[in-house]
């Protein structure tokens, strides 16, 4: 089957894709949604870092009388909850919890999922079959239910939450990496590397993994968003670390008094929404920046 795909034999006058030299960072910055995302995320990180500075006292402490509405008293700009705790303090301390859990659990999930996926994809055969059965098992179980069960059994704490979220989040990573590695394995430049006599390890390191990096990075940013949603949902149900004030807990605590004091649930929820939104926007920006849609790379 003949196929006349190629160009005439002169180098393309203009490079057919944005030159690889242009950094991904510059490409992201041209995406307005991603810029907004970065700004919001910076705000969240800033809040987390500044919390011990601006609100050195524990957010669990009662500082004023209960049920002060927001924007009425300067010292408690966002009001107080049913026990007189400062909402703003809770928000700032909660930022740290959510971001920490989100980030660490995602890293842990990647540490599990990437090697498993790479092995399954590259080695194929029985190893692939076994690993895929194992992954399917984890994907059948409803992930939130499993997280609840794990945290309940291990007793709620930051550590158990991170572990539980990591353990329910790794299957999609494995699937993605496996898929990418499989398609790369049959790509001609990988075969060329085999043929020129390079070791398996070198091939994985030099030819395969760098070309899977972009989808993993995009997935990772979306995973942090999902992890934060999971963490806040667990905290809402009362499975959060009892020593840490988190956004989900605040929403849960304000649930019973929602008619009188809407702000106790509104502000923490809004904080979760904005942070997760920001991460999603960044993920989309990364996707557009790292995966040029040109048919250059078949």
């Amino acid at each position, binding site marked *: 089957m003949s196929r006349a795909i190629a160009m005439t034999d002169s180098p393309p006058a203009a490079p057919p894709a944005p030159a690889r030299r242009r950094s991904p960072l510059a490409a992201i910055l041209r995406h307005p949604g991603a810029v907004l995302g970065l700004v919001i995320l910076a705000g969240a990180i800033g809040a987390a870092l500044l919390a011990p500075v601006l609100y050195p006292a524990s957010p669990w402490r009662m500082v004023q009388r209960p049920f002060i509405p927001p924007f009425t008293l300067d010292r408690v700009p966002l009001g107080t909850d049913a026990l007189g705790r400062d909402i703003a303090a809770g928000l700032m301390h909660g930022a740290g919890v959510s971001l920490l859990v989100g980030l660490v659990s995602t890293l842990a999930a990647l540490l599990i999922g990437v090697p498993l996926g790479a092995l399954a994809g590259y080695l194929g055969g029985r190893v692939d079959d076994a690993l895929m059965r194992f992954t399917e098992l984890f994907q059948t179980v409803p992930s939130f239910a499993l997280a609840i069960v794990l945290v309940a059994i291990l007793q709620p704490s930051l550590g158990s939450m991170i572990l539980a979220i990591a353990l329910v989040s790794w299957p999609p990573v494995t699937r993605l990496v496996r898929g990418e590695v499989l398609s790369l394995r049959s790509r001609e430049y990988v075969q060329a590397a085999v043929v020129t006599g390079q070791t398996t390890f*070198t091939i994985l390191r030099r030819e395969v993994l760098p070309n899977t990096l972009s989808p993993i990075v995009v997935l990772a940013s979306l995973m942090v968003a999902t992890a934060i949603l999971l963490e806040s949902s667990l905290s809402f149900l009362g499975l959060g670390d009892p020593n840490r004030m988190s956004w989900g807990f605040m929403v849960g605590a304000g649930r019973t008094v929602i008619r009188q004091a809407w702000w106790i649930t509104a502000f923490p929820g809004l904080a979760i929404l904005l942070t997760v939104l920001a991460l999603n926007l960044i993920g989309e920006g990364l996707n557009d920046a790292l995966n040029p849609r040109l048919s250059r790379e078949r």
Partner: protein
Amino acid sequence: MDQALTPPGVAVAVRDLRLALPHGGDRPNAVDGVSFDLLAGEILCLVGESGSGKSMCAHALMGLLPKAVTVAGGSIRLGQTDLLAQDAAGWRDTRGRRIAMVFQEPMTALNPLMRIGDQMAEMFEAHGLLTPRERRARAVALAREVGLPDPEGIVRAYPHQLSGGQRQRAMIAMALALEPAILVADEPTTALDVTTQAQILKLIRDLQRRRNMAVLFITHDFGVVTDIADRVLVLRQGRVVEEGPAAAVLGAPREAYTQALLAAVPAMNPPARPAPDGPKTIEVAGLSKTYVTGGGWWRAPRTVAAARDVSFALRRGETLGLVGESGSGKSSVARLVMRLIEPDLGTVRLGDTDLTRLNGEGLRQARSRIQMVFQDPFASLNPRRTVGQIITDGPVAHGVSRFDAMERAVRLLALVGLDARALERFPHEFSGGQRQRIGIARALALEPEVLVADEAVSALDVSVQAQVLTLLEDLKARFGLSMLFITHDLRVAAQICDRIAVMRRGEIVELKTAAELFANPEHPYTRDLLAAVPGRARDAA
């Protein structure tokens, strides 16, 4: 404003057509002032290399240009209508009824979720003709007319159940449903095997004669032009280079470009070559590989024999061609010899070493003795590594210092005709032909004894192809290499191979010197294959 009708006898009159590309393309206009007449009842071939704009012209006739390409000027007149001035409703009426089109890739040109008959009937439905029952009946009749087997049954089949040739017949049937006066065929046989191509070309010729249609046939293959064209139009970079009756343009071309293009097409007459008499460098014996797919608890698995007891040997300085159609197993044999896939049976010996017995580190070391040049210039170079890294990775993996490897790379680049500055650049900065040269340099960097070229020129334009083939011959002679040359193109094989092995369904059916094979083919399949190659008339002349 020219309100004249198209003169009688002219089906479509294209005047000064200008199609603009978006900013940043390699030229401002894909098609720049092209004019031609398509006469009723004739086959006009639009020929050109890739990027010449021939496909754009065809799409313009149907109003199917991609969104990025805009009409910047000119007119296309069909009867009383200027097609380019039509609105969407006008185009919908024109398409299928007055002009119909057949596309290049039969594998993807049909909706995978609809039955063939339904897709044919859709043509009538689009123009509000016939009742559903009548449409079904006409679909069966059309299937019969284009030579599809079991017409009643096949209209109920889905596209994936048909072969490439059958799908193309179905596409042609669809195009003819409303009996249009004009058929536009955009490289309809390029993606087909050579024997299937011959059948489809014959079908198109027969149908054209029977229905007296005007056919605009786009192709890059001069063999096809020889077999089918009444008139020829040569395009280059969006402009008409030459035009005239087929015999004139092919036999006595006036323009230098046309002459160069025709000269670059390899003839079917193999040149005389001295018989190689060096020592044997590679011996393949009894190579076999069977693929088993499917199968589960309820169904027997399907077996496909990719290679069946394949044996041959190469001497130093000799080129052996492995020729065959898709599914013949020639690419599988190449990969088995390279041990990219594991053979079930058989041995591959490089001199004294049995490559099939080696494993692990031993195999890795031995690999430097046999190297490969791949088919797809776009996929065979890692886009994230520089050319220098690509060429030196191999030697470095075998213990050569990075410095020495770089020196070797510079010398090799010069040999393949590239500048040393290429070392710092990335693959995407080079054209297809240049990338193939880099691939060749990469293969030679390990100083192998045997070179396996797997369809190494199939993805290149014919002029570039000629250059790369010459390069391979030179390098082979200079380094005393043996070459295993895989191709589906018999012309290329004739030009470059000492001996040729014809493969079919995993077996070698005939193995002879090139001269003998073309002069006296014995096996019936070989004879069919040779007869199907388009353009033999020109070789005889």
